[in-house]
């Protein structure tokens, strides 16, 4: 994932930080306790705070794979809106997560997703989850999202 090198007028763009306040406040993301961590032109980053009742391993106090999947799904959606600079109704069509290693015991997990391509009806996302060192990921993900409802044609970069 690359760093953004050309800062643009932040007021002209979809604001993931501001949107996170309502996107992450209720429902499943709210239950997980997801928080905004950062974003760039085409990526967004969320934090999944460690919590006893999110543990999946019967031996180690490690966050389960399910919440990590949820966080990456959410971060992927936010990466699409960040890249598109607006909210587009999307639905995840297909998503794959490879779990490289368990997260650290009692460790928060960070999810960072990048939307690297959009077409009229689809958006392609890749991302990682890590617990402090992005070069030593806990998991990697790849997903395809489809635009739904009347928002087809919104993702305009490629047809």
């Amino acid at each position: 994932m690359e760093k953004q090198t050309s800062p643009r007028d932040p007021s002209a763009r979809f604001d993931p930080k501001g949107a996170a306040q309502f996107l992450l406040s209720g429902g499943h993301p709210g239950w997980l306790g997801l928080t905004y961590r950062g974003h760039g032109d085409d990526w967004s980053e969320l934090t999944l705070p460690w919590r006893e009742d999110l543990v999946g391993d019967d031996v180690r106090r490690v966050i389960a794979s399910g919440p990590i999947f949820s966080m990456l799904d959410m971060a992927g959606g936010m990466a699409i809106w960040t890249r598109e600079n607006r909210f587009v109704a999307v639905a995840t069509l297909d998503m794959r997560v490879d779990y490289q290693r368990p997260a650290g015991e009692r460790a928060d997990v960070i999810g960072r997703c990048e939307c690297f391509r959009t077409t009229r009806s689809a958006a392609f996302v890749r991302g990682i989850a890590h617990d402090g060192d992005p070069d030593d990921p806990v998991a990697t993900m790849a997903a395809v999202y489809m635009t739904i409802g009347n928002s087809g044609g919104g993702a305009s970069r490629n047809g």
Partner: protein
Amino acid sequence: MAEQSRPDLLSNYARSLGIEVAEFEDGVPVLWVSGIDAIEGRPGHFHGGATSGLMETAGYAALRVALSEAGQEAQLKPINITVQFLAAAKKAPLFAKARITKLGRRSANVTIEAWQDQRDRPRASAVMNVMIQRATPEGA
């Protein structure tokens, strides 16, 4: 099924999300979660992550039952999961059941389907690979 030998099928996470064992079909657990706020994504619908969490839990539950019936103790670790979201799941009871396609010595391959009122129209399907770390190595 003898109650005393049934393994724990739910993790902290699964229990906390409200996932329960609905029934056993041919010895395979059917899991479900109701349309509570903790699963909601887009208003009135399941979050894809909650759907996946249910299916993943159903996959582990099926493996735990199979290993337990074989009298084997093992720890399960996720390798990967691929989820197909076929149709939006409404904020209503969602069920999931797994089929073990391979139960090997070191890994298992499991497919899962999740459905609501129409079982022949699944809302999502998944395939996962799971690492099996056995407490006592087999003769082979």
